[in-house]
């Protein structure tokens, strides 16, 4: 039987933990709003970019572009994007799990796998595989387009010099505040974006004046397109991280409340037992005096 003091101390401790977790919940929800706002602002750019890419790549022949070159896949590079900080439930663990699954899958096919880690948590979990080629840490808290560009350039350089034949990006897709799902997206070689509306639109595009030629425009746009892919993935991870932390902290706060109510019960029982014991003593003493 724990003493009254022990139980009381524990209740105070758990209550303090609940205070911290509920504060973290509120901070995460404020940051989530910021991250969602950032995502919202990026959407017009991404939409227009994809539209222009699909218009351009519709007619061109893909062999002319080094970033579109389809090679025999021997070396696969996986860009794993997670958050820098933990305390967000299984969010990062799920992404890492997918990364490991992908690695086993490719290795079973006899392919070589390398990782590019974005975010501390990816690096922490994957460095023991010994396959981390390069890492970008401490950027997820406040990243800009130029961070994405740095990563994209690094990955593209590696692809162009033949060190990797295929590049995939793994990140946590922000489906909703409640659901974040780890997903894999092909990045290199760039595959032509499918036309949605078909021939009618192509005809209209044919009347454009291009400066310079469509091929040269593609040469400029393709690296930018990689930036868009990486930046988008980072935005998704940013929002997902905060959403996952909100959920995790909400659960933690609830668990704290449950523990406090259990402990209060224990405390009251112990207190009552002590009171009863004291009463028995007094009654016993009084009886003895009477006798």
């Amino acid at each position: 039987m724990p003493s009254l003091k022990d139980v009381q101390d524990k209740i105070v401790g758990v209550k303090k933990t609940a205070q911290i977790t509920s504060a973290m919940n509120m901070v995460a929800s404020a940051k989530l709003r910021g991250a969602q706002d950032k995502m919202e602002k990026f959407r017009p750019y991404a939409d227009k970019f994809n539209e222009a890419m699909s218009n351009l790549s519709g007619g061109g022949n893909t062999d002319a572009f080094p970033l579109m070159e389809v090679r025999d896949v021997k070396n696969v590079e996986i860009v794993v994007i997670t958050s820098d900080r933990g305390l967000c439930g299984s969010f990062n663990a799920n992404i890492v799990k997918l990364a490991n699954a992908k690695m086993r899958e490719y290795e079973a096919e006899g392919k070589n796998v390398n990782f590019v880690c974005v975010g501390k948590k990816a690096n922490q979990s994957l460095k023991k595989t010994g396959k981390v080629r390069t890492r970008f840490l401490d950027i997820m808290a406040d990243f800009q387009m130029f961070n994405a560009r740095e990563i994209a350039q690094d990955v593209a350089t590696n692809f162009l010099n033949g060190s990797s034949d295929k590049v995939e990006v793994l990140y946590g897709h922000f489906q909703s505040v409640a659901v974040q799902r780890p997903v894999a997206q092909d990045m290199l070689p760039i595959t032509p974006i499918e036309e949605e509306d078909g021939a009618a639109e192509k005809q209209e595009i044919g009347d454009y004046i291009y400066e310079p030629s469509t091929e040269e425009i593609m040469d400029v746009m393709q690296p930018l397109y990689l930036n868009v892919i990486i930046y988008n993935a980072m935005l998704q991870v940013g929002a997902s991280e905060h959403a996952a932390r909100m959920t995790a902290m909400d659960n933690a706060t609830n668990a704290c409340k449950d523990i406090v109510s259990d402990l209060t019960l224990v405390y009251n029982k112990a207190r009552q037992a002590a009171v009863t014991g004291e009463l028995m003593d007094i009654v016993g003493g009084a009886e003895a005096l009477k006798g």
Partner: protein
Amino acid sequence: MAQQIHLEVVTPSGAVVNEEVDIVNAPGYGGDFGVLANHAPFLSTIKIGLLTYEQGKDRHNLMISGGFSEVSNNKITFLVESAEFGKEINVDRAMKAKERAEKRLAQAAAQGDNFNQARAEAALQRALARIKAAKIA
């Protein structure tokens, strides 16, 4: 009033300009170009430089970094990685960035480091464009 064209400048962190203007001048791949209302459909890559547009007597200028622009249906859209109004640019900072970039450029050139040379070159161009945009404003 003369006919106007709709100008939109979109960056990854949101739309910067979204209004009707009289004329747009931009740094295209093959040199600067101007666009008036009812321009033919046109697509060009954009270099780091100065984008100016006029609304009546008002003249605005922005520093833009690389991307591309599209003209269609009396609308011109710039998709660029960054865009800043001249009046919002901190000239001192841009000057310092210019000096830094020049140093790095010289260093990279001396070492024959193509990758860093290209990066420093781009940084220098951005700094120069910023200074130019800030001076006019």
